[in-house]
């Protein structure tokens, strides 16, 4: 085996690839060859590091030096300085706080230091297209352990003891779910991986599939062994071409190694796995809709019972878990249930991956132990609010989740606590909002999404969300009435209880939580005809402070509606009637004379 003195890990996740990491890899290769260093230094493309905002990311080992925003043009310098002369390039390092202006090492970056990476353990460390690297990091050891020394019942007991709960959103105990399917009689059973990640802003499943596809496959195999299944489906959305490609490679490699197929590891256990590409319907993340879609029918949920454990895919007993859940399974088998359950809270064990986005300094993927507070995630890991504005709310759990306020920042994150507050864990989207975000607008945004994605089957979801949306549209247009709030709340509660599936049942959450925690904003829209955050264009008014205006004419020149009048060096005036509230004037004003209210 070839030994290298140094490894250059370049992120090959979707974010970094679109940032140009493929070129960076090629450039490294060329540069190393030119300097005849290619026998000493190995360039590896890895999965996602999570800090996509700073991509493309390059990590140089053995030092663990972390470089961000590396472009093709930086490569020559990096090779020259760091690799050849041994002098790390501080210019490309992570910029830290005042006391530590440059943070050279991966582990010292606050974004990573509070994380506990289990599902993401290999993301960013290994080449996802190389099964050997996965095996070298204890890959397929869990499967080996299970096949060589555990009965299916023991595997399920271990899963139950680990306390792992479904990471897709609902948080149903995984071990218990498996035991239902295992107890179900049938000559044919299926295990299914739900990789139809549809929440806007969530991308943990994509990162796992792109960065560590084998762990999902291994997890499914362990589950299949425990439940007596021999065939699996990975339902992956077609918008994830890189994930699908890496899965295909992983499956081919596992098959070549005899880790997939007939009589795996010389035992009676056989397993094959298929990839089914979804066509981009949010509702297909619902398990019964997902199975209908695999069967070739329109993806629409059906009422349960019968539960998939008894009658699932093609009416056979089936078990669906999401990508992150499956990814945890091999690690639990290797390290034991006790290790896993030592993390987290009383009822929510282990870790959870969150997609941190919105008005936060460091957006990206973070994996944290359950029980961590929202404050730690947003302020310690995320680095606080962008431009040091004031924190207003955080939306948890995607479009079906809820908005929590400053008061909830010290709540410990767990399935129970979030549900009690009116949000849900969901798949783990965390959208941070600051004072410039209008909460009515946020509710409208998420409702627009679920309304469009409703499968159309039940009236509450199909028509109810539409009517709710209309009310929100009226309110944000300044045409709301106070009784609208009652109608909205009543209808929202009925949609929540009356809808057929999880999509409809959780669709009103953003509305209900904002009504609960930010009712004053709704009232301001209706009574004062004002949007306190200045986000609802119909309700804002732009004006120029004559005392500040220097008459530079920049605003007038940039106004697309030509509604700003004024002579040079004299104060300008905006004609509110004509103004289309695009905000161009405010953006271009050199002295900050334009104000919004």
């Amino acid at each position, binding site marked *: 085996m070839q030994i290298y003195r140094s490894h250059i890990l370049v992120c090959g996740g979707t974010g970094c690839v679109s940032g140009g990491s493929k070129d960076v890899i090629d450039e490294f290769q060329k540069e190393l060859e030119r300097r005849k260093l290619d026998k000493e230094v190995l360039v590896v493309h890895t999965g996602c590091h999570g800090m996509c905002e700073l991509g493309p990311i390059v990590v140089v080992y053995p030092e663990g030096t972390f470089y961000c925003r590396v472009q093709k043009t930086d490569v020559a310098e990096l090779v020259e300085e760091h690799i050849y002369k041994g002098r790390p390039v501080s210019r490309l390092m992570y910029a830290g706080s005042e006391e530590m202006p440059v943070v050279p090492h991966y582990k010292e970056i606050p974004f990573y230091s509070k994380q506990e990476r289990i599902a993401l353990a290999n993301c960013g460390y290994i080449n996802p297209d190389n099964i050997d690297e996965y095996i070298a990091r204890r890959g397929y050891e869990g499967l080996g352990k299970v096949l060589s020394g555990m009965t299916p019942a023991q595997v399920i007991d271990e899963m139950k003891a680990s306390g792992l709960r479904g990471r897709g959103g609902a948080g149903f105990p995984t071990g218990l779910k498996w035991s239902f399917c295992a107890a179900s009689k049938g000559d044919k059973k299926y295990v299914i991986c739900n990789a139809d990640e549809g929440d806007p802003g969530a991308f943990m499943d994509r990162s796992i599939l792109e960065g560590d596809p084998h762990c999902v496959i291994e997890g499914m195999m362990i589950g299949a062994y425990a439940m007596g299944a021999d065939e699996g489906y990975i339902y992956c959305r077609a918008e994830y071409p890189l994930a699908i490609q890496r899965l295909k490679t992983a499956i081919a490699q596992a098959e070549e190694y005899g880790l997939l197929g007939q009589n795996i590891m010389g035992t009676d256990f056989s397993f094959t796995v298929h990839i089914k590409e979804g066509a981009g*319907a949010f*509702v297909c993340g619902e398990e019964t809709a997902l199975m209908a879609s695999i069967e070739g029918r*329109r993806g*629409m949920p*059906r*009422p349960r*019972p019968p539960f998939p454990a008894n009658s699932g895919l093609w009416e056979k007993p089936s078990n669906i878990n999401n990508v992150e859940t499956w990814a945890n399974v091999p690690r639990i088998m290797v390290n034991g249930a006790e290790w896993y359950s030592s993390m987290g809270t009383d009822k929510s064990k282990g870790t959870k991956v969150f997609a941190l986005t919105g008005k936060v300094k460091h957006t990206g993927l973070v994996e944290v132990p359950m029980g961590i507070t929202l404050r730690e995630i947003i302020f310690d890991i995320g680095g606080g609010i962008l431009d040091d504005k004031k924190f207003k709310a955080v939306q948890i759990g995607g479009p079906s989740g809820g908005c929590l306020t400053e008061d909830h920042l010290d709540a410990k994150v767990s399935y129970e606590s979030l549900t009690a507050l009116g949000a849900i864990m969901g798949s783990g989207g965390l959208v941070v909002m600051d004072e410039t975000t209008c909460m009515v607008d946020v509710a409208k945004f998420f409702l627009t999404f679920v*309304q*469009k*994605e*409703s*499968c*159309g*089957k*039940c*009236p*509450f979801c*199909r*028509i*109810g969300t*539409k*009517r709710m949306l*209309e009310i929100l549209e009226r309110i944000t247009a300044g045409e709301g009435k106070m009784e609208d709030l009652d*109608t909205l709340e009543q*209808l929202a509660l*009925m949609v929540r*209880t*009356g*809808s*057929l599936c999880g999509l409809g049942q959780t669709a009103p959450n953003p509305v209900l939580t904002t009504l609960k925690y930010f009712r004053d904003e709704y009232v301001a829209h209706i009574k004062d005809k004002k949007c306190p955050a200045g986000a609802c264009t119909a309700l804002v008014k732009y004006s120029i402070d004559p005392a500040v205006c220097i008459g530079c004419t920049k605003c007038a020149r940039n106004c697309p509606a030509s509604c700003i009048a004024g002579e040079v060096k004299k104060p300008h005036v905006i004609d509110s009637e004509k103004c289309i509230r695009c905000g161009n004037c405010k953006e271009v004003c050199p002295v900050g004379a334009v104000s919004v209210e």
Partner: protein
Amino acid sequence: MSEITLVIDGVECKGSQGDTILQVARANDVYIPTLCFMDGLTPIGSCRMCVVEAEGSNKLLTACTSPVTEGMKILTKTDRLIQYRRQILELLFAGRNHFCMFCSQSGDCELQRLAIEHGMDSVRYPFLYSDFHNDASDPNIQVDHNRCILCLRCIRVCSEKVGAHTLDLEKRGWGTTVTADLGQQLGKSETCVTCGACAQVCPTGTITLRDFVYRGRRTDCDSQVETLCPLCPVGCKIKAYVRTGSVVRVEGLSTASADGGQLCSKGRWWLPSSTERERLAVPMIREGSSFREASWDEALSLVAEKMTPALESGKAGALISEISTDEELAVMSSFFRDTMKMDKVDGFYGNQLRGFVEGFKPFARQGVRPFTGAHHILESDAILVLDADPQEEAPVVASYIRVSTIIGRAKLVNVSSGKNPFEGITDADLRVSGKEMKALLVALREGGAGGAVPENVKGALEILKGAKKPIVVLGSNLAKTPELVTEALNLAVACGAPFDDGLAVVPMFLASNSLGALNTVTGGKDWLSEGDLDFLYVHSTGMVDEDTHSLNAMTRARFVVVQTPFMVHPLVQMADVLLPVPAWFERSGHYCTLEGDRRKMNVVVPPQGNLKGLGVIMKELAAKLGRTLQEASTAPCENVYVAKAAPDKAQIVTTKEVR
């Protein structure tokens, strides 16, 4: 099945394991409103109207999908539930353009009925007046999406009962609509079989059938009569709606029955439209190129006068429609065979029937019933279609085949000389010429033991070998070669999995009462093609077109008497005397159906005016001929393929003795 006791609205009810709350409630006369639910279709719990509360749970359960459990305490009429139901109705009403006063289905509409029932006198949301498509592309079926509530009944009946799966949903969210094929208008659909089942199940005025829509709502009709459709041997049970003496609408009887309450395009449109056709009301006698009205006495005297010499010279024949009831066939048989001792008596489909009978003979001799009820196709796991085109021959059988294949996941093998009638859903498709057919059937039966099997046959062979309950559908064309019929039955015997009532074979007889005709009017040989006749007595029901073979014989005959309810062309042109008879809706009697049972046809509209029943006509004619109408010596359907031996005792026969 273990019994379950539960309490619904304070009433103790008993149900069985697996029953839904709705089933138990209905069985115990507890009313729960439903909208998307329909007996016989998969319950989907989508409209949410049937939500009920279970004590101890905050969740709302849909009664149509939730199974009962021991000790459940169900409430169906709480204030909360009534609020929910009313909310749903308001959402549905305001959701699309439901303006009852402009809707043809007002009064027949289930949505409207529920709204009245729930006291929904106003809607708290503004109407959207959204502009959904009004699909008028199909000449028979109109789909106004503005009135659709997405109960999905049409989609379910189309895929679960008709097996066409023409209809499904497109788009998501608010704009979700029912669509045909992959986003086509219905009229451009390639899969629609125009059976009208979708309109029958539609609870609102969305899918309507143009022929019936303004002729009378169900509730406007004077009477509804259960009867059967006499157009093909399936004999679907129907409900005929009568208004001011006309049949204005027919519907399949029950979605819960094996046929799913469907009708085919023939039954759906031909039956009601026939009440509007030109009737033959009085006897007529030819005068040159036209007819003149005559009295019964004059007409029958003329018939008798022409018939007598022809009888003596042996040049008198009778051609009887096999679409007649058992009773009519018995009368005809007693008149022509027993009273007049004629040997030239036959049905329009005599040749085809004789072919089948000949092919069946070796098995009939063994005492085995050589075919089974057509609905057994739904229970089979492999279907072999032999030179058949069921969509033409008996369309509901085609539905059975599609449903069994698509929903029941049966394997489908087509063997034909022409096109594959089930293109796209067949698992193996073998095209053979008529000559190769026998060898193929033998090869399939012997399972490749007889030597090398061609590659394309292997697939079919695998399917038959792997099947637990295979069934063979015999095309009417096959009857031309009785040997092939026998070989097909041999194959069914070799598969070794007959149904309780007979061999796993479904023959495509063309006439609806072929089995009734066998004993009564079907002749021993094809005399129709031989030489010319001096006298030909034709009994037609006027429901299906006469074949050229029969028409040619009529052209050649010197004197033709035609008995028919309608002025059917070209039939009436052949006649010298026309005698009126009651039409299908004026008759009663029995049919021996392909489904294996004897079904009753009832009088839908009583006959009017100068009409005489067939029995009376034949009796009077016999009197004119100086005879007394004899008792029929044979009874229709009696001893016709009655099983004397268990079907699994059937032996394979050699086909040498078969023509």
